[in-house]
């Protein structure tokens, strides 16, 4: 099974076309607003996986599961991939994520249905 190197949620990313270097812009730790609901115009969840010797040509599925505060059912986005190279970066962009309540916005990454890591964003209502 591929091994997770890191999982980070940011506002944007850039991958240099010549050097393949990645830059993550504005890692999202918390959001605040005077009124709710709020809208997150764009968030990018980046998970980077390292190949393990036994991975071969196996097909894997990674899912991004989002738990907005106050919502019972998470939103889930799955991608299938193969470890064709030693490292595989998956960038999942979510446009127009709506948040209706304060609390914790939890973004979780799973591999073949198994929890691997999560990133928590605090959502606060300010006066």
């Amino acid at each position: 099974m591929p091994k997770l190197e890191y999982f980070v949620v940011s506002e944007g990313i850039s991958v240099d076309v010549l050097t393949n270097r990645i830059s993550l812009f504005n890692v999202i730790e918390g959001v605040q607003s005077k009124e709710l609901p709020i809208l997150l115009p764009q968030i990018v969840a980046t998970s980077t996986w390292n190949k393990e010797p036994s991975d071969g040509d196996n097909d894997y599925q990674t899912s991004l599961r989002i738990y907005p505060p106050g919502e019972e059912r998470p939103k889930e986005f799955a991608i299938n991939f193969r470890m064709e190279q030693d490292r595989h970066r998956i960038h999942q962009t979510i446009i127009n994520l709506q948040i209706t309540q304060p609390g914790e916005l939890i973004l979780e990454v799973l591999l073949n249905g198994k929890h691997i890591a999560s990133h928590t964003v605090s959502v606060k209502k300010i006066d």
Partner: protein
Amino acid sequence: MNILDKIKSDDFLLSVGFELPPAALHKVLSRTSECAELVDAYKSGVLTDTTLRSFVQQLLKNFRPAEKFPYDITLALLAVSVESFSSRFAEEFIRDLSQLDLAELTSCIKVAKLCLAGRERLAKNEYRQFIFPSPPNNNYREVHRVPETVKDSHFENKYSDLVTA
């Protein structure tokens, strides 16, 4: 003399010397000043994908069946120089070259195979976008993404100092 003229000159080809095993040739080429110059020129945009494609096409006009290709080392150097780049040219050039089976181009094909193996170390990027429908504008408020820690008094003091300085 520009770098592309330099790497097809007799002086350069002679400086690399006679045929070496592929791994040794890969190492020797990667240590040449011409390789460093090519990397710099490609990274800075002085050499573009179009320029390099056209250069390779020009070289291949000298290909004669059953004769050793005179720019075998030049192509090998080019493969070594673009090995760590994730550009389309680098990908296509190294992959296509490594898949050839021509006796006239033995050195560059073997070096390209090594470059291809080296490229496996580069990360692959995969992108997906999921779009929720836009809600009516007036229902949603501006979001402040400034973390709380940025608003603490320490930061404000430091910022004030900078402003008044």
